[in-house]
């Protein structure tokens, strides 16, 4: 018999090559939500484990589907084919194919349990920043108990620092997820789960609510802004200030009046306008939601507002759970006409028609006039 020129291709080699190519493809494609393009150790460990299972699955897939296709071609009925031998089984073979998947599965189980304890554990060393992430229908609020500040839609964290996230909800179940930094942990009323993660590269990452939480589940996103520690400290100091008071007679000053006297201040708070700093437990005017928003019987709506706090709205990158980006540079209410503003400025679009942009959200208000919207845009975007 002639020797073949090439050695028989090994099936597992083919499978491994395929999965390596698939891995390259997977981590290169996809956008900000790609769980295989990671920037933190927790997501990194989860990704490694995914690649292990992907490789094993590829080998099994190629082997089993290969055997199936081989049988289909090899044993298809042909004219004059005799009836096959009536084989009822083979105990040895069956023992083997029970044992082999069992061994493979238990090896992966070993990896699973090892990684599971690693990603769930509290970090043993290193500096730590604590954040209370509060799931609302449908936006995220972030309270920093160490700094006594509150923000919404954007979670600022320092790079290479352990972040302890205390997950709090007083309504329905949400799930906290930053695909490129960490897998999910559910935010369950009454359970106050804790999640640890960190980011090893500065930048902005997308965060999403991953548990169906009602009508606008799709528009419950947030940004994780990872910055250098000194920038983080500067940011904290800024957030601790009360809102800037606009110059007398400016458009922004009119906006402040509309905010304070109109419907806005019922649901939103701005420190220095309708909330005063310095009360007990609230040196900068912010209140811990897990304390002040926890009991419906003793709820004080001056300390626990239903909408996001807007004291530093102008510094945030998203509006209303990420349904729009806060493109402050495109908002020039002083110079633009209302129609121009409505075309370019997302905040103006939002104030003009919140139910059209995010149907079902809690901001059900009477139509604001063009002048009111212009003034509010000027004011809110000035709140850096």
């Amino acid at each position, binding site marked *: 018999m002639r020797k073949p020129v090439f050695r028989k291709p090994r099936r597992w080699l083919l499978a491994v090559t395929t999965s390596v190519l698939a891995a390259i493809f997977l981590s290169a494609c996809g*956008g900000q*939500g790609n769980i295989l393009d990671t920037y933190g150790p927790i997501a990194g460990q989860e990704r490694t484990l995914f690649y292990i299972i992907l490789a094993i699955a590829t080998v099994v897939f190629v082997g089993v589907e290969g055997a*199936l296709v081989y049988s289909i071609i090899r*044993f298809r009925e042909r004219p004059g084919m005799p*009836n096959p*031998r009536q084989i*009822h*089984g083979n105990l040895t073979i069956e023992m083997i194919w029970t044992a082999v998947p069992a061994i493979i599965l238990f090896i992966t189980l070993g990896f699973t*349990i090892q990684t599971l304890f690693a990603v769930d554990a509290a970090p043993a060393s290193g500096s730590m920043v604590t954040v209370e992430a509060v799931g609302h229908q449908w936006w995220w609020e972030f309270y920093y108990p160490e700094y006594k500040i509150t923000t919404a839609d954007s979670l600022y964290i320092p790079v290479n620092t352990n972040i302890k996230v205390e997950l709090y909800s007083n309504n329905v179940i949400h799930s906290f997820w930053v695909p490129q930094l960490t897998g999910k942990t559910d935010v369950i009323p009454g359970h106050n789960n804790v999640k640890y993660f960190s980011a090893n590269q500065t930048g902005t990452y997308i965060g999403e609510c991953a548990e169906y939480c009602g009508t606008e589940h799709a528009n419950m996103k947030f940004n994780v802004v990872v910055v250098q520690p000194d920038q983080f400290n500067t940011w904290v100091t800024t957030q601790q200030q009360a809102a800037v008071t606009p110059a007398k007679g400016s458009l922004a000053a009119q906006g402040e009046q509309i905010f304070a006297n109109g419907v806005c201040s019922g649901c939103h708070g701005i420190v220095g306008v309708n909330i005063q700093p310095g009360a007990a437990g609230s040196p900068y005017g912010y209140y811990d939601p897990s304390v002040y928003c926890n009991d419906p019987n003793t709820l004080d709506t001056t300390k626990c507002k239903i909408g996001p706090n807007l004291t530093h709205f102008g510094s945030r990158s998203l509006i209303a759970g990420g349904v729009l980006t806060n493109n402050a540079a495109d908002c020039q209410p002083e110079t633009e006409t209302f129609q121009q503003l409505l075309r370019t400025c997302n905040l103006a679009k939002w104030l003009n028609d919140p139910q059209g942009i995010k149907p079902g959200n809690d901001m059900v208000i009477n139509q604001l006039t063009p002048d009111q919207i212009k003034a509010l845009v000027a004011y809110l975007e000035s709140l850096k």
Partner: protein
Amino acid sequence: MATQVIDTTTTVVRRKTFSETYIGEWITTTDHKKLGIMYLVTGFFFFLVGGMEALLIRTQLAFPDGKVLTPQEYDSIFTMHGTTMIFLFVIPVLVGFGNYIVPLMIGARDMAFPRLNAFGYWGLLFGGLFLQASFAVGSAPDGGWFMYAPLSEAACGVHAVSCTPGMNADFWILGVLMLGISSIAGSVNFVVTILKLRAPGMSINRMPIFAWMTLVTSFLLLFALPSLTTASVLLLLDRHLGTHFYQYASGGDPLLWQHLFWSFGHPEVYILILPAFGIISEVLPVFSRKPLFGYTFVAWSGVAIGFLSFTVWAHHMFAVGLPPLAQAFFATSTTLIAIPTAVKIFNWLGTVYGGKLKFDVPMLFALGFVAMFLIGGLNGVALAIVPVDYQLTDTYFVVAHIHYVLFGGSAFAIFAGVFYWFPKMTGKMLNATLGKIQFWLFLIGVNLTFFPMHLLGLFGMPRRQWTYAGNLGWNDLNLMASIGALIIGIGVMVFLYNFFTSLKSGQPAGSDPWDAFTLEWDTTSPPKKYNFLTIPVVRSRRPFFDKKYPEIADWKSKEAMH
């Protein structure tokens, strides 16, 4: 049609009673074959309803910022799609096959409790109509098919913002309760029928695998449904009588719902797939012209899956913050349940290997099942890896997984069963060319719809989103999925055309068109009301094969009886 009949005992001519008219006969029947057909037809009707809901979902998501549905409509549609397909399509159709085929397979004249059987069917029909009627009054359930509390509560949250105040969740709770009663009635009947009414000589280890799997499934339903019933009744009390089982602010716990629901919900997953395993284990041997490879392993792996399915429920809850030790336990039990499932796939390969394969339509769907279910098994293992699950749970990766298992798995097996047993039920063959066209449309459609969803999950798309922004890298994959859904839809149209034309003018089938092995083929097509003129005597696992090929009968072979 004559409206008068001659009474056979008194020879007096009298008016037909209601139960003797065509309609009356169907409405009042307790015959397992008629009820089986009614289950099947009802199930397929709801398959079309659920399919249209699926197409609406895929239309909405075909492009970013879709405006076809409002978010409220989308939420109702995806909830009802899941509820309909699971409770009103897959279960009824598999029960329908069981009703029609199991008594014939085991050589019985009917189910053990014929009237209970009829009760079960009517419970299903009215439960199903009740659920769908919610659309007519404009409050279809919208909490997802697993109805997580407290979102499904009337009021939740300290700001007293109402969650699901209308009748939406009530429709779901009451509908599912009715369907549960129907399923309990059906399951008791199957258990007693299979344990007590087998033909002489059909010992339990000679039963066809389809009867085995129906038996296991019935036990699963009996033990799993109480959990769902409890959960729903507690929710109903919360919603209307002011109790607080799932209200954290008053000392209740939202996780109670999840534990109760999934301790029903995971056995439920196997309720949807075990009878499908049974169908595949009947079809593959006949069209490979060989007995099933490793009967004992296939039967007992089904039983093992049944037991283990009660120990894995919290793998749906890996992200809820259970302690790592509990996570490790459920990861281990989930790993264990993968073993008998793998064994089954290997045994099917062993059945096909070395056979003489005839590619009739039932065989195509059965082979398609093996190929697709394998994918559903492998991506299922990925979800059992807890840290990977932290990333993948509640994304489109899970949607891909359930659809490879439920569409590539259960639905392919159901169509294998339809093409296989249609001749027995009607006496006519379904058109094979149209069947092959449907098969290829389904195979292409399923992969085009559901494979991209793996990638959507990896790229961070959460499930149950009524819309998505265009800048997240999800556009092309979603469009592919929507095109795939359309292809499946065309396949269903081909099937409907095939069904009605074949029913009217299909080729006559004869009693045994596939040269099959089991007792249901050893009688006329369709069988007479009493099924068999004389009850057959069984000497092996393939009684009808023995009868047709006495020289190589199984009972003569030592190997066949091990």
